[in-house]
């Protein structure tokens, strides 16, 4: 008998199409898995409203479950509660840093108006002497930073909550 834990273990093998080093579990977009009317129903939530990866994640989840012998699963998208970078797993944070992307700081960028942006340590040399190049990076969930010490340009997985 397959249980929820087993489903979550299998979904650890489904990667985020934009940041393949993270699984959909690390990312925190999988919110629940339960049996409804005899079929597994997987509930996911988008990181950003227009995240173009959601459709791919849904297909990848279904195809992974099919590989594991579950033919009739469904995926449902819910908006509430809204996704937060606090749901990123500890393991996911470590994997991000190793991949060269600075993981989200636990504090939202307070500079909504007129304050200094969050200090984001360089994922390569760990210096805190870094600067934000652009609030919007290669995807909606990232900002672009550069290290003033080692000069490394890097993505910052920006805090959202």
């Amino acid at each position: 008998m397959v249980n929820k834990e087993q489903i979550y273990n299998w979904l650890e093998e489904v990667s985020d199409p934009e940041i393949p080093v993270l699984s959909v579990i690390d990312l925190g977009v999988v919110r629940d898995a339960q049996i409804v009317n005899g079929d597994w129903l997987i509930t996911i939530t988008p990181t950003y409203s227009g995240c173009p990866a959601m459709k791919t994640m849904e297909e990848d989840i279904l195809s992974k479950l099919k590989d594991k012998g579950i033919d009739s699963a469904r995926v449902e998208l819910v908006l509430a509660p809204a996704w937060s970078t606090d749901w990123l797993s500890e393991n996911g944070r470590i994997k991000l840093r190793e991949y060269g992307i600075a993981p989200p700081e636990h504090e939202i960028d307070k500079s909504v108006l007129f304050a200094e942006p969050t200090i984001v340590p360089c994922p390569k040399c760990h210096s805190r002497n870094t600067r934000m190049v652009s609030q919007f990076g290669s995807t909606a969930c990232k900002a672009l930073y550069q290290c003033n010490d080692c000069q490394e340009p890097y993505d910052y997985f920006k805090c959202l909550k």
Partner: protein
Amino acid sequence: MKNEALFRYLLRLGDDSLILGQRLAEWCGHGPILEEDIAMTNISLDFIGQAMSLLDYAGVIEGKDRNCDKLGLLRFEKEYVNVLLVEQPNGDFGDTMMRQFLFDAFRKPLYERLVSSSDKQLAAIADKSLKETRYHLKHSSEWVIRLGDGTEESHERVQNSLNTLWRYTDELFYTDEVEAQLIVDGILPDLSGIKAEWESTVKHVFSEATLEIPANNWKFDGGRKGRHSEHFGHLLSELQYMQRAYPNMEW
């Protein structure tokens, strides 16, 4: 229809998002610098995503089997109810940032109130969108300040952007029987404080940016009733082209 006022209100929110998202998408590949090209298209994506949530939900309330694609891409011009501000042409980068700032400064306090709507789906969409809107407002207000308090030329040009766009701002606060009904129904919270909050944000940013609010009090409206500016037909022809040329196509 389950609730006509809610349907009409969701179209207002959804159309504002869709049309501004479409305008920002026009910058793709044309931004003044790579970072801004990426920023504007990222913001566009947020707006289109919000529009999808809002129009999908409008379709559910309407109950006629229309989803965000049908509502977004297959209505006629007079059925769109976005404010005139969001359909104004991109102009130069300063015009786009000014348009964006005037709108973001309105959207943030609006979403902050909609979060407490008694309608759970509307509240969920507002909560999700608010987090994105905070980043948008930060981006657009910083550019307004940078351009306004920048060089003589950037100051003059962005002041002209403000002079041109100011006449469309009053319409942001347009309300009629739709909002009134939803407030009676308990679906919408009190929206009356939004204008004061918007004014305080724009005054603060314009003072940092050394920009003057135009004295001219000439105002335009009509968007909420489906009366659009000339630019709108051209925008729709591009937005709708694919579905009109190849009905029901998907990819």
